[in-house]
């Protein structure tokens, strides 16, 4: 993928975001102080396993964390001089769907089955752009054509169940881009789709990004998606960002053992002979995080200090940064599987 195409201004800056959930099993810290920025026109990929805090980060920005049980403990999310996290809900809902839009993982359930596609598309533009009913319908048809839905002027009056999964995700994208947002948050938009449809949806998003200049926050667990669409990437583990890099740098020269683990466990066209190596063990229970680095129990490079120090993000030689005490290019590699079973016994 190309390097960041632009040196544009920062659109959104997230600082020290912490989100907790009060559950029956105790306090779960889903996001533990993440900092990142999204620049105009770029695609920032966020990768990590389930429960690493990728989605929670995005939902927090949108004010969509149910509170309770969720609680945003600290942090700022600066967008055009305003802190999204402290905005009154009325003002935030003026931004949601308008300047910052979001699409979700499962297009089968993300659209309301009781309302026509037209209903669901026009309510956004009527709310945010103040269009009349007729203008909104015309705009909805335009948007459906733009996302490649054939005979849009007829299909706009149909219900979601009359569309296939890929078509529904196109409808979601049309809905999200209706008001020409600055930022599109895409939370695993291709996960529920089959592979050929995935590729089509990613192509569509890239195309629309070039036309509209929308910045995309792409949340996914799929490195293939990242390689395809992202300019910069941040890797999340157990509620923290453990590595940030440009997409080329991340794939060529991962600095964090977890990133390396992710890369080694995914098949790659450019390294067909390489053996797939899964990351041993399970992601940690967020209500009982180990002391020190939260990846240490699964890490093949861990050293004694790792159980004491939770490493901060430090700059790498290139543009990125990573949170690890060791240099994985030089450090000796040991067998993390036996390390886990030793600790369990």
């Amino acid at each position, binding site marked *: 993928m190309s390097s960041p195409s632009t040196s544009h201004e920062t659109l959104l800056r997230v600082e020290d975001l912490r989100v907790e959930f009060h559950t029956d099993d105790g306090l779960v810290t889903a996001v533990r102080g993440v900092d990142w920025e999204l620049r105009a026109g770029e695609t920032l990929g966020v990768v990590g396993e389930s429960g690493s805090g990728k989605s929670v980060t995005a939902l927090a920005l*949108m004010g*969509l964390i149910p509170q309770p049980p969720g609680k945003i403990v600290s942090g700022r999310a600066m967008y055009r001089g305003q802190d999204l996290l402290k905005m009154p809900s009325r003002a935030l*809902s*003026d*931004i*949601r*769907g*308008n300047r910052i*839009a*979001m699409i*979700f993982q*499962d297009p089968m*359930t*993300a*659209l*309301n*089955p*009781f*309302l*026509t596609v037209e209903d669901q598309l026009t*309510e*956004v533009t009527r*709310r*945010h752009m103040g269009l009349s009913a007729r203008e909104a319908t015309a705009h909805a048809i335009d948007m459906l054509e733009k996302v490649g839905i054939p005979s849009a002027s007829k299909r706009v009056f149909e*219900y979601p*169940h009359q569309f296939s999964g890929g078509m529904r995700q196109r409808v*979601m994208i049309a*809905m999200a881009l209706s008001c020409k947002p600055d930022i599109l948050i895409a939370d695993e938009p291709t996960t529920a789709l089959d592979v050929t449809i995935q590729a089509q949806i990613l192509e569509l998003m890239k195309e629309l990004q070039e036309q509209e200049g929308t910045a995309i926050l792409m949340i996914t667990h799929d490195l293939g998606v990242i390689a395809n669409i992202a300019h910069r990437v941040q890797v999340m583990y157990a509620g923290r960002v453990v590595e940030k890099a440009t997409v080329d740098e991340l794939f060529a020269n991962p600095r964090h053992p977890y990133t390396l683990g992710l890369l080694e466990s995914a098949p790659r066209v450019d390294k067909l002979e390489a053996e797939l190596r899964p990351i041993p063990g399970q992601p940690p229970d967020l209500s009982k995080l180990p002391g020190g680095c939260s990846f240490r129990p699964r890490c093949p490079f861990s050293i004694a200090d790792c159980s004491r120090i939770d490493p901060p993000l430090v700059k790498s030689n290139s543009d990125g940064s990573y949170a690890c005490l060791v240099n994985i290019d030089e450090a000796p590699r040991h067998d993390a599987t036996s390390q886990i079973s030793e600790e369990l016994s």
Partner: protein
Amino acid sequence: MIRFLIRRAVWIVITLWLVYTLSFFLMLAVPGGPMSGERAYPPEIEKMRKDRFHLNDPWPVQYWYYLSNACRGDFLSSQVLNDYEVSEIISQGFPISATLGVLAMSMALILGLSAGIIAALWRNSLLDVFFRSLATIGIAVPNFILAGLAIMIFVFQLKWFPAAGWGKPIDMVLPSLCLAAPFAAYISRLTRTGMLDVLGQDYIRTAYAKGLMPSTVVLKHAVRGALLPVVSYLGPAVAGILTGSLVIERIFFLPGLGTHFIEAVTQRDYTTSLGIVMVSTALVLVMNTLVDVSYQLLDPRIKLK
């Protein structure tokens, strides 16, 4: 849709016939008859009275006689109130029972839906707990006890309502409230569960993510899905209100179908009781059909076949 309605009509006719037949023979099987009063008549007079209603014929002949008349919509004259046709009795009682039933159903829907929606939106709040306890009581307490309590409190203590009678609008309030209570309670619980289910759906999150106002999200996106279980309950609720009104009419001395029915059954007035049974059955069947049709109107994914 048309095919659905035709098929449904056929089933309604079959069901009506089954109900008629079953009721007819049940009535015959019950000891006593319309002519077994306290006074003993001379045998000739007894025979004449019975002949008028074909009661001396063998039962297949009787059955055929009554069924063929009923098919023409004629339930003949009352066997006890000699001067009245059954259709006259029904047309006198029906408007009263229908008013009572429609009022009760509307109250049940308005109270149940609003309580359910409020309880779901402010889940686990004091209001929610209050409505839920009220609903539990409403479902648990039988309507004759509720009506008795209501009369004691609102009629005799507070003197807000008249004890009985039918004519002024105020007469209708207490009976329809008592009749509505258990259904309002059940509808509020169905609505609450339905709302909570819908509010957890992805498409509600989408609606918020689009920047819609919370009121729009609830009224436009959530309520419709939450209504489905309530709508499917309306069929049984109509049947329940019909039977409930038997008791309520009796308690409040309302001259509705229910009161006539109880009179007719206790006096073994075969023609009148059969007539009322058939009207009620037809009503329930038609309401159930309407419910199924409205189900499709609410949920575009459902196609009736």
